[in-house]
């Protein structure tokens, strides 16, 4: 099996899906001859031509609005937003149409659209190339929101997203686009939507996380083991909504302690929902506070981003807080 990074895995997923199904098309800014600014769509235009790999004008609202019409027709468009920080022009289309057309039409129409986009920080991108805006999508009924953390998952989840009949917001943590390599099958496979991945078993405390924060959490868990012998369990959600409540509950049943880690700003980040879900449905399992390690409630800064983002020290502090409660 070849090893690949996430960009290659995503490129392969797109290529395979486009070969499999003529209804799959790609559109976005610079996705054609440029191959996307991160090269996720590299060379697709050579194989599939300008009708199926569409370089669009610079308008996210237009990209999504047009893609909605295509999806209603029966195509399976994969729309790239060059950086998720630029998706907001399309927010009306996403909230009012992508998420609601099935409901509004009493099930007569659906929008099998994937909006994929690089997200999150860690590459010195400043406030408009580093955001983690998943909360906006998670809160919007009608959308599925996904963020892979490995090349294998990226390929399998993107394929699943293209095939599902519902709209998917597919967020790609750009800081690990090329830093993680692993074996990725060259054949067809799917990673199911809605299922978390158990990254590391443990018995003392559960970390629920996703995206690049999986790796920070692993590091912090090592530090906790080293310093205190604490055994941390790590869950990578993969699908953010609907998130895998069973995986979360099962783990807390065992550990009784919960830390949630994400890059998105803390207030109403996904951590809030997971914490509230547990407090509502399984508070008896908790042995202490549910601690969230998240981006601070500020715009994402250009300077000191590694201090702004959840880092090993902050995750370690959270583990310590729940363990020593």
């Amino acid at each position, binding site marked *: 099996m070849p090893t690949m990074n996430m960009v290659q895995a995503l490129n392969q997923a797109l290529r395979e899906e486009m070969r499999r199904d*003529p*209804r799959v*098309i790609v559109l976005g800014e610079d996705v054609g001859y440029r191959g996307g600014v991160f090269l996720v769509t590299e060379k697709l235009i050579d194989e599939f031509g300008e*009708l*199926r790999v*569409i370089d*669009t*004008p610079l*308008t996210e*609202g*237009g990209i999504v*609005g*047009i*893609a*909605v*019409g*295509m*999806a*209603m*027709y*029966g*195509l399976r468009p994969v729309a790239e937003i060059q950086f998720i920080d630029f998706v907001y*022009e399309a927010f*009306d*289309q996403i909230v*009012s*149409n992508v998420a*609601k057309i*099935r*409901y*509004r*039409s*009493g*099930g*007569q*129409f*659906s929008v099998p659209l994937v909006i994929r986009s690089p997200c999150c920080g860690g590459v010195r991108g400043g406030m408009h190339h580093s955001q983690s805006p998943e909360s906006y999508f998670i809160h919007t*009924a*009608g959308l*599925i929101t996904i963020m892979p953390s490995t090349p294998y998952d990226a390929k399998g989840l993107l394929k699943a997203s293209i095939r*599902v*009949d*519902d709209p998917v917001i597919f967020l790609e943590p750009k800081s690990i686009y090329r830093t993680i390599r692993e074996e990725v099958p060259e054949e067809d496979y799917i990673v199911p939507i*809605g299922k978390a991945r158990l990254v590391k078993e443990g018995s003392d405390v559960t970390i629920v996380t996703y995206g690049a924060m999986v790796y920070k959490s692993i590091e912090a868990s090592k530090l906790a083991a080293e310093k205190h012998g604490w055994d941390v369990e790590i869950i990578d959600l993969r699908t953010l909504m*609907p998130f895998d*409540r069973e995986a979360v509950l099962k783990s807390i049943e065992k550990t009784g302690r919960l830390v949630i880690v994400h890059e998105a700003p803390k207030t109403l980040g996904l951590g809030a929902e997971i914490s509230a879900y547990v407090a509502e449905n399984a508070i008896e399992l908790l042995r202490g506070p549910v601690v969230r390690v998240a981006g601070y409630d500020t715009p994402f800064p250009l300077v000191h981003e590694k201090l702004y983002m959840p880092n090993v020290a902050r995750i370690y502090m959270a583990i310590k807080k729940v363990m020593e409660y």
Partner: protein
Amino acid sequence: MNLISQALAKDLNLDKALGIFRVLDDQGVPDESLEPKLSKDFLLKIYEYMVRTRILDEWLLKLQRMGKVAIHAPNKGQEATMIGAALALREQDWMFPSYRELGALLVRGMSEEEIIDRAMANADDPLKGSDFAIYGSRDKKIVPAPVPVGNQIPHAVGFALAAKIMGDNIVVLTFFGDGATSRGDFHFGLNFAGLFKPPVVFVIQNNQWAISLPVRKQTAAPTLAVKGVAYGVPSIRVDGNDVLAVYSIAKEAVDKASSGEGPTLIESLTYRLGPHTTADDPRRYRSDEEVKRYEAKDPIPRFRRYLMYRGVLNEDLDREIWGRWRDYIETVVRRCLSKPELPEEVIFEDVYSEMPWNLREQLEEFRESLRVMKSLGLRVE
């Protein structure tokens, strides 16, 4: 420089975007050089659509006042535009209307009953009670309109572009109001249309008002049609109260689109004779005289005069048509009124292709809440 720019200016064909195309004068007398050659039956069919639309519109107003319909956006005065344009479509073509095109729904084959069921959101509502003032039917190739003004414009373009990509010969027609031309969606949709040349026809129902805002306060452009220039989309302005003019121009646009020659923007000049919706009070922003002035241009009497001028219609036949449709629609209304409500759990349907666990949990809470209400004798206020 001047030669180039003159050549370019000629290409832009601004005459059409700045003038007004009309076939009938205010008295219904046709300009014979422009008059389309239509059969008597077809002309009467047009008229019947106009009559049906007017009666249906009145009923929806009434039903709203009775509390049976949440809101209604009156169509009165705009029948020529919606019917003329919709008639230009072929069986295989698709329509993306706004909330003010009852007549176009009828032309595409939706029945009065479907429309009233929808407006009442009763048990037979094909859209299952999801929103008000929107109509559609996959069967009839009508996509239910989004309430946010203009949202459907890029959809229509994407839909048409998808058909082009798949090599299917369809044309997509979308209606929207003058107000919608200010929205981003208009800018996006027209831009993509100019670039990718999908088979799409845009019809601006310029009824001169966006609620209380007259068109001259919406844009400083001399016409709305001229906006096509900004996108390389050929544009034309037509008298929207002249059903033959609208039909002729829309047909040309549909033919052009279906033969691969791309989009057309049609500005159809009409007037909203009623309030914006049943929740509006137009006296706050426009004068009764203005309305009176436009009542004299009502497209239905105007077309009736034409039909009489051409000997297609006489007083008796006219009375018969109105009477027949009034009776028929009244029967339909009665039937619709007798239908039950949509079941309560419908509100949990069609969010996703399969219900996710959070909604399943919430549906349980919902069922429990109905039981509690029953057991405690609580009523929904």
